[in-house]
C-alpha cells in the first residue's frame, strides 16, 4: 500500500526541491513559499473553492489521458482538445441555438464540445493508423493550431462588438451559463460530470470489453496482433474518447467560468499539459486521478498566489510542474524496464 503512494510522496519532495531552486534565484525562503502555497490553496474556504474549481478540468483531461496512456498511445494533445471543446460550446451557445432553454442548451454544449475534442484527437489517430505517424508529435502540434484557432476566432469572426475592442466573444446567454455553488466559481454540473465519468472510466477499464482490449494493446501489442484484435479500431476509439473528455473540460471552462470565448491562455492555464502529470501520478487509476487533480488544482492556485504575494514570475509553477513530470516519467519508465527484464514484478 505504501509503495503505491510513494510517487506522490516523492513528488512532494520534488516540489520542495523546486522551491529551493527558486530560492537560490529569488532569495525567497522555500518555507515561506510552501506555506503560502498551502495556505492559499487549502487554508480558506475561498482557497479550497478555487482549488476545486481548477481541479475540474484536470480531472476531465487526466481521465481522458489515462485511457490513452493505458493503451500506450501517447496523446499529448489534451490542451488542444480542451480548446476545441470550448470552441464547440461557444458555437452552440452563440450561433446555433442561443435561444434554446437551459435544459437543452447546456447538454448540447457538452455533447458538441466532446465531439469537437474527439475530432481533434481523431486527427492524430488517423494519421497514426493510416500513415504510422507518431501521435506524440501530431497531437502536440495540434495544440498550437488549436491555440491559434481560438485566437483567430476572438480577434476575427467571433469578436464581440460589445466588448470595447477586447478579444472576447460575445457573452453567453444566461441559459448557456452553468450554475455555481453559492458565490464560488465551482461550476458543479461539470464537477459532478467528472466524478461520474471517473466511475464510468473505471468500469470501462476493468469491466468492459473495450477496457480489456485497451489493456492488452497497452501491455503487449504483439500479443494483441497475434490474437487478432482490431488494433486500429481500438486506437481510434481510445483517442476519440480521450479527446472527448478533454473537450468536456473546455466546455466547463467557458460555460462555467468565463461565459465567453477568450484568448487561449485565458481559458486554460496549461490544464492539458498538467493533466499529463496528473494522469501519471494517479497511476492511470481513475479514482486516484480525481484525488491528484485536487492536489494539482491546489498547486495552481498556490502558484497564482505566490506570484501575486511574493512577486514571483508566472512561470514558477510551470517550472515545478515540469520538474514533477520529468521525475514521474523517469520513475515509471524505469519501472517498465525493470518489469520486462525481471519478467514479472518481484514481490
Amino acid at each position, binding site marked *: 500500500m505504501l509503495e503505491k503512494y510513494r510517487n506522490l510522496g516523492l513528488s512532494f519532495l520534488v516540489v520542495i526541491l523546486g522551491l529551493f531552486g527558486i530560492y537560490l534565484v529569488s532569495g525567497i525562503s522555500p518555507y515561506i513559499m510552501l506555506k503560502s502555497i498551502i495556505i492559499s490553496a487549502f487554508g480558506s474556504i475561498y482557497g479550497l473553492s478555487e482549488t476545486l474549481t481548477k481541479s475540474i478540468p484536470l480531472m476531465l483531461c487526466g481521465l481522458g489521458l489515462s485511457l490513452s496512456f493505458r493503451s500506450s498511445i501517447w496523446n499529448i494533445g489534451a490542451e488542444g482538445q480542451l480548446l476545441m471543446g470550448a470552441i464547440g460550446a461557444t458555437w452552440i451557445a452563440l450561433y446555433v441555438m442561443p435561444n434554446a432553454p437551459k435544459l437543452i442548451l447546456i447538454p448540447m454544449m457538452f455533447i458538441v464540445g466532446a465531439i469537437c475534442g474527439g475530432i481533434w484527437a481523431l486527427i492524430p489517430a488517423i494519421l497514426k493508423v493510416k500513415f504510422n505517424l507518431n501521435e506524440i508529435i501530431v497531437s502536440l502540434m495540434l495544440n498550437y493550431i488549436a491555440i491559434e484557432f481560438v485566437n483567430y476566432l476572438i480577434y476575427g469572426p467571433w469578436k464581440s462588438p460589445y466588448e470595447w475592442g477586447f478579444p472576447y466573444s460575445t457573452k453567453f446567454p444566461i441559459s448557456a451559463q452553468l450554475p455555481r455553488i453559492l458565490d464560488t466559481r465551482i461550476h458543479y454540473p461539470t464537477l459532478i460530470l467528472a466524478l461520474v465519468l471517473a466511475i464510468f472510466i473505471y*468500469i470501462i477499464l476493468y*469491466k*468492459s*470489453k*473495450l477496457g*480489456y482490449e485497451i*489493456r*492488452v494493446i497497452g*501491455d*503487449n501489442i*504483439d*500479443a*494483441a*496482433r*497475434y*490474437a*487478432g*484484435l*482490431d488494433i486500429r479500431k481500438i486506437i481510434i476509439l481510445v483517442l476519440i474518447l480521450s479527446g472527448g473528455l478533454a473537450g468536456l473540460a473546455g466546455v466547463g471552462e467557458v460555460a462555467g467560468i468565463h461565459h465567453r470565448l477568450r484568448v487561449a491562455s485565458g481559458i486554460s492555464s496549461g490544464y492539458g499539459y498538467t493533466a499529463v502529470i496528473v494522469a501519471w501520478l494517479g497511476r492511470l487509476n481513475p479514482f486516484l486521478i480525481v484525488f491528484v487533480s485536487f492536489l494539482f488544482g491546489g498547486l495552481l492556485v498556490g502558484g497564482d498566489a505566490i506570484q501575486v504575494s511574493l512577486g514571483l514570475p508566472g512561470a514558477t509553477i510551470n517550472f515545478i510542474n515540469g520538474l514533477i513530470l520529468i521525475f514521474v516519467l523517469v520513475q515509471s519508465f524505469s519501472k517498465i524496464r525493470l*518489469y520486462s*527484464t*525481471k*519478467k*514479472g*514484478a*518481484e*514481490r
Partner: protein
Amino acid sequence: MEKILQMKGITKRFGNIIANDKIDFGLNKGEIHGLLGENGAGKTTLMNILYGLYTPDEGEIYIDGTRVKIRSPNDAIELGISMVHQSFKLIQSHTVVENVALGLRDTSFFYPHKQIEKKIKVFSERYNFRIDPNALIWQLSAGEKQRVEIIKAFCRKARIFILDEPTTMLTPSEAKDLFRLLKLLKGEGISIILITHKLDEVMEVCDRITILSGGKRIDTVDVSNVDKDKLARMMFGQNMVLKERQEYSINFYEDVVLEVRNLTVLNDKGLPAVKDVSFDIHRGEILGLAGVSGNGQRELIEAITGLRKVTRGSIKILDEDVTNIGTKGILNRGVAHIPEERMRMGIVPSMSLEENVILRNYDRAPFSNSLLLDYGIISEYAKGIISKYRISALNEKVPAGTLSGGNIQKLILARELSISPVLIIASHPTQGLDVRSTQQIHELLLKKKEEGCAILLVSEDLQEIMDLSDRIAVMFNGTIRGIIDIDRANIEKIGSLMVGV
C-alpha cells in the same frame, strides 16, 4: 572434488508461493550438472538468484568457499557467471553484434564492432550456429534468437555457465554441437549448469543431476546411477511411466482444410522468404514442417495466419479464399495459433492468468455481452483450465508473466486448443514443457487429429515431428524440399533435406 559453488538453504517466496524451499545446491569444478524438475519446480528461480536477478529471502551462496552476495547480474558477471536465459532478453531494435556487445567487458574502445563481429563469425563457424551478425533481433525467428543468446553467453569469459533450456528450438544437430562445446569447456575446468526437460540430453551430457520438485530439492545423483525412468519417477512420483511413441492411425480424410498455392511472401528486409510454396493439409492430418529456423518457416506461418502480407499465390481454408483478409478474419474461421515466442507473442504478462485465457474469445458469450465482461464466468472457466492442464499457479488472478516458462506455454496451449479449431498452427508446441506435460499435449494433439482437425506442426525437434506427423514437409531456403510420408521418413533423410542436400 573441488567445489566451485555452494548454495545453502536458499529460500525464495513470491507472495504466497514458495518457489525455492531451503534448497542446497553444489557445483563441482569442471562438471556438467543437470537441473531437473517439473514445470514450476523452481529451477529458473534458483538460477535467477545465482545470477543476481532475484535476491533470496534466506540462504547463502559460496563461491570458491567464500561467501558472496550477488545483488545484480553485474555482480554475477564479475564473479565469472554467465547465463543463457529461458525467455529471450535481447534488445529488439538492435543488431546481433550490438546485443552480444552489451554483455562484454574486454572490448577495445575503438571499433569494437569489427572485433565482436569477428568473434561471432569464428564462434558460429566453429560450432555450426548460422547467424547473420548484422541482422536486427526483431527480424530473427525464435530459433535464431536462441542461438544469439547462446553466442552471447559464450562470448563472455566465465567459470560458471548457466543454461536454462538452451535447446528448446535447436535442431538435433545444433544441440549436438552445443553439447560438444559444453564438453570441451568442461575439459578446460569450466562448470556448467544445464536446465532441460529432455531426459536424453541429460543422460548424454551431464555428470550429476539435481532434481527439484515443488520448490524442494529431492536429490542429487550421479548419472551413472540412474536411468530415464528413474529420473521421471523422481520428478513426478512412483506411478509416472515414460511412454514410447504414441500409436495412432496415419490415415486422414480426403477433404482439404488448408490449401496453399504458389505462395510467395517477403521477409522484413523485403526479400522473398517463402518462394512459390504449395501444399495441402487434410482433415485429420498432422503435417510436420521441419527445417532449420530462419529458412522461411516463420514467414510462412505469419502469412497463413494473416500476420504478413502475401505477395503472390493463395491460401484457402475449407475452400474459402482467405488470402490477405487479415488475422482476425482468419482466426475467426477456426484457426488456433501457438506462436513460437510465448512471452512476446503469446501472453500479456501484466494481465491476470484468467484474462489471458480468454484472449481468443473474450468478445463472445459466455465471457462477455455486447459491452461488459463477465468476470464470474471467466474466473470459473479459468479455474477449469488450470486444473485440466495442470497449470501451476497460486490462483487465476496472478499476472501471467509470473508463471514459469512451461506454465506459460501450457496457458497458451489451453487457450488455443479450447476454441474448437479446424486448423491448428503449432510452432514448437511443447517447448519448455516437462516430460509429463509433453506427453499430455501430444495425446491432446492426436485427439484433435482424430476429431478431424488439420494440424501444421512446426518444430526443429525432429523426434517430435517424427512422433506425431502423418507427412513431413522440409523447408530449406524458402522452398519446400519435398513432402515425405511418415512410413518412408527417417531422421537422416530429413536431416539432409534440412540443410539443402
